[in-house]
């Protein structure tokens, strides 16, 4: 039995700059994960519903618009309502240092700011998913 890591990569909010999200999606794919890419302009509701239908282990949200302090907590809140606390939520984008702690306090496990390496992101996702599953994961 193989159970690949499934990650939803979403662009939430109103900005349409999806290059970063696509680069991360590609890196996760190249690391052997199955990446469900949603495209741009996703609402928190769409992101969480997608994660439920796709049985995602992790949700990565890219946000460059400045709305992170609203959108991330809302995603976590919806996940909690759906009993999806075991799903990893991480994010990336232009997020000021001061907001990172706030987001951590609202269920965003890790925020990747500009300059983060792809290797860092891949290693983190693999490790955090393995920890949640309680077993080492294949890729």
């Amino acid at each position: 039995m193989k159970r690949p890591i499934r990650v939803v990569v979403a662009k939430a909010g109103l900005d349409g700059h999806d290059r970063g999200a696509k680069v991360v999606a590609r890196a996760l794919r190249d690391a052997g994960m199955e990446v469900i890419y949603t495209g741009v302009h996703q609402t928190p509701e769409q992101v969480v519903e997608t994660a439920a239908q796709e049985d995602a282990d992790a949700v990565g949200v890219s946000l460059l618009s400045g709305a992170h302090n609203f959108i991330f907590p809302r995603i976590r809140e919806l996940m909690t309502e759906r009993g999806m606390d075991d799903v990893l939520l991480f994010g990336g984008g232009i997020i000021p240092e001061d907001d990172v702690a706030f987001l951590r306090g609202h269920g965003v496990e890790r925020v990747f700011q500009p300059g983060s390496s792809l290797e860092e992101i891949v290693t983190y996702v693999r490790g955090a998913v393995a920890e949640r599953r309680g077993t080492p994961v294949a890729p």
Partner: protein
Amino acid sequence: MTAAAPPSLLERARSGDRRALGRVLSVVENEEPGAAEILRETYAQAGRAVVIGITGPPGGGKSTLVSRLVGAYREDGSRVAVVAVDPSSPFTGGAILGDRVRMQQRALDDGVFIRSMASRGHAGGLSRTTARVVTVLDALGTAVVIVETVGVGQEEVDVVRVADTVVLVMVPGLGDDIQAIKAGVLEIADVLVVNKADRPGADDAARDLAQMLTLGKGRTPWKPPIVRTSATTGEGLQDLVAAIARHRAWAAESGEHDRRRAGAARAEVEAVLREALVRRLADRIGRDRLERVVERVARREVDPYAAVDELLAE
């Protein structure tokens, strides 16, 4: 999550918990412990859904068309599911499943369930367990299941084993009519779509397809209609829905529907049997012995036939 008891998970899925359904489909897809029980609990109730296969070359607009079809089938309140397959990387096993991008406006409709699947090394245009995932969705009360294959070339024809009606989506400008003659996928099409029909060359594409169909004798008396659509504008969509319904009515009346389902049952049993035999043999032969023989074949000390005889000898 690993210890969730499959029956209760299935019960939750049955009562409309979409996250539980997502997990149930993973258990079946990954063949996790509990997969056989889920199939056992659902198999008898399946077989009622209308299963439509959408296949065709990459970039032909399949996902956009699927999203349109979902909208059309939702009009009367029917529950609709989509199973969309995208290719896995042969090198890393990873995949980018991007069909949802064209369907996300349906994501919040609670009568719609969309599931992406990676092909995971299976070559027929679907993944090995796609038929089983469709069975579960069917059994849990989905009225229409739309199965979108990976972008196909010429012989990825597994979808005919899953769908009652296969729609082949072509686009203008794919090449001359020889391309169409070669295509195995053309032989499994029950309805032919020329999508992006607002583009130049649509007339040529439709004509080439029409001529192709007159060249050979089909497997059945059914003559696949050619429907022109524009998935982005929705033009031709009602014609497509009508063509699918006509095929379904014909298939039911002519016995083709039952024949196809019987063929699908045979294919599924054979596939599961093959998997079981391979697993059993692999256990018996053992990885080390297999590797040693492979090395000798690579050095050309023994040919593959003789190698297999040797492995099976004990």
